[in-house]
Structures are given as C-alpha cells and as structure tokens.
C-alpha cells in the first residue's frame, strides 16, 4: 500500500534551468561569461530560481 503522504505527490515537470554561470575555482564562486560574479546580477539569480526554497537538491530538505 502506498503511504498516505505520497498520495499527495505530483511530478514537478522536467526542470532544466540552464544556469548561465560556472564555478571559478580561484575565486571560489560562480562567475558569468563576462567574468563578473553571478551574485552581481540579482535579477538573473531570481530568474533561474536557484536561490528559492523549492530548489533544494535531493540531499537537502532544509528549506
């Protein structure tokens, strides 16, 4: 029998947010193609949704 709580689960839809930044090992943070830190563009971070509380990775439920 399926556990009660899982009866309320639904598929999220494939979410393939392409993040237009990559990790820079020297600065230890993510940078945009122009070399500026990703955090210098708050609108972009909001748009890609990686800072929201549903963006948790599978190993993290502390949102």
């Amino acid at each position, binding site marked *: *029998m*399926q*556990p*009660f*709580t*899982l*009866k*309320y*689960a*639904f*598929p*999220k*839809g*494939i979410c393939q947010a392409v*993040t237009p*930044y990559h*990790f820079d*090992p*020297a*600065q*230890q*943070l*993510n940078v945009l193609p122009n070399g500026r*830190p*990703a*955090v210098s563009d*708050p609108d972009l*971070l*909001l748009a890609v949704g*990686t*800072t*929201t*509380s*549903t*963006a*948790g*990775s*599978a*190993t*993290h*439920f*502390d*949102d």
Partner: protein
Amino acid sequence: MTVLILTSEEDVTADMVVAALHGTGTPVLRLDPADLPGKAVLSADYAHGDFDGHLSVNGHVLSMGGLRSIWVRRPGEPAAHAADPSPWLTAETRQALYGMLHSAAARWMNHPRNADQARLKPWQLRVAHLSGFAVPPTVFTTAPRLAREFVEEYREVVVKSASGPPPDDPQVALPTTLIGPDADFAAVAAGPALLQRYVHKRADIRLTCVGTRLFAARKIAEPGQVDGRYGDTGHAWQPVPVPDRIGKSVHEYVTLAGLAYAAFDFAEDEDGIWWFLECNQGGQFGFVELETGQPIAAEVALWLAQHRADRRSR
C-alpha cells in the same frame, strides 16, 4: 584565521557569503565533501599527544590551527564524486573529514549534532511550544482511526511530509496539501502521516535568524492558498518588523535548539497571529535577500568572521 564553507559548487547562495567575505578580506576555503577524495585532499595527524590537520582544494589550503569557523551550508555526501563511490567509501571519508573538523576548535553554523536534532519536525513543534509560539494542532500517526478523528475534529487539515520529497526521485514534488474527510485513511498504516490544522492565513512569513540578528519577510497569500511556494500569485516577499513577542520566542527557540542559524516559517492569520509551522536549520535565504534587500549574507559572513565565542555554536 580562515572560514570553511561546506557546500556544493553550484550553490549561489553560498556565493553571496563568499563575496561578502572577500569584501572584508576574510580568508575562506570552500569545499564540497563530495570532492573528497579526488579534487580535494585531506590529512590529519594525531601524534605526540597533539593534533593537526590540513585540507586543500583548487590550490587553496587550510590548516586546522587556522580554522575560525565552519558553515555547513549544502555539503554533498562525502565521496559522492569519487571515481568508485560506495556507501563504505562515504562512511570512511565522513570519518576522516568530520572527525578532523570536530577535533579543531572552531565555531559551527550549525553544529552537526544540533542540526540533526533540529531537523526533526515533531521535536520542532515541542520546542516551539516551550518557546511560547502559537503552534497549530498537529498529529503524526500511523493509526488510520486517529488520523480520521483528527480530520473530523479540525475539518480543514493539511498533510505535509516531515523529511521532504522522496530523495531517490528528484522529479517528485510534495507540497503541503489540504485533505478532505473522504481521504484514504487506511494508507496511514503504510506510512506515518503528519496532519495539521489549516491556518486561514493572509500571509506567509519567513524569519531568518543569524546569531542574534533577525530578518522577517512577509508574502501575501491568496484566500484559500495552501503551500506558498507553489503557484505564483504575483505577490513578492516584503520586509516586515519582528513583533517583540516573536523575537523573544525566536531567541528562546534557537537557544534551546543550539542553533546559530535558523529560518522559520509562519502562517499569519486574520488576527495577525504568526503560527509556527517549522524551523529550517539550514533554510535557504537567497530568495529573501534578493527580493527584500535584507543583508542576510553579510550578517552570515560577519558571524563566521567573528572571534567571539558563541555558546550556541558548540
């Protein structure tokens, strides 16, 4: 003295803190335990009655004698990125890394022992009671009869998961949902159900606590809306002052729980009461800072860079 941040590379919320630490010239090492062994290298020696250890990654080096504080943000599983990962390799690597970090005299945000306990939702409700918060009636049960009786008593009831969506299926969402009186209560026997009285809310509240600093944000809810994270209503997070009573209860809560960082969720009802829903010991704050402009990352950086001993970090 160096700040150690345990998190994944793609964590841009951690970037906000790294940038703040760079801004104040505070040395920082960012490490994902998943990269150990491999990209990251560890060595700790326990000899001649003494202890020392080193961590390095991407050309950055940290010695345990120079470790100021540790921010456990979103660390991967130790050895997850190893060439031949296995549960055994993860266990060995966890021993090596966390054994070394616990041997050092550093402040933790948050201490793993306290973090583990703080993740237990039923315990959170108890601590919330003791801290003076209003807590909606809640039951966590494997007894179908008790679940049905709870719904008959409170009528409007939500179900939520205690641990989040199934970790083995990243495509599944499990939002808090209203259940009806005709729900299939027999299934409660197959898995504990966390049921809570629905709060008729006019807003969701997110309160982020960093050390002793509090940042509260409020987002208007649509009538009848349940999980504020799903379904865009067009309302944004706005900064709000923290009522005195709430501030006192938050301090009580984080002291009882031993937390240096915590993100609380509340539902604000029609009388303005903030009902405690949960306390996320590692809760995301990126979206709050970006929408409200509240300087949470700078406060986290400040806490990590401080010298002061904090009884909640040990």
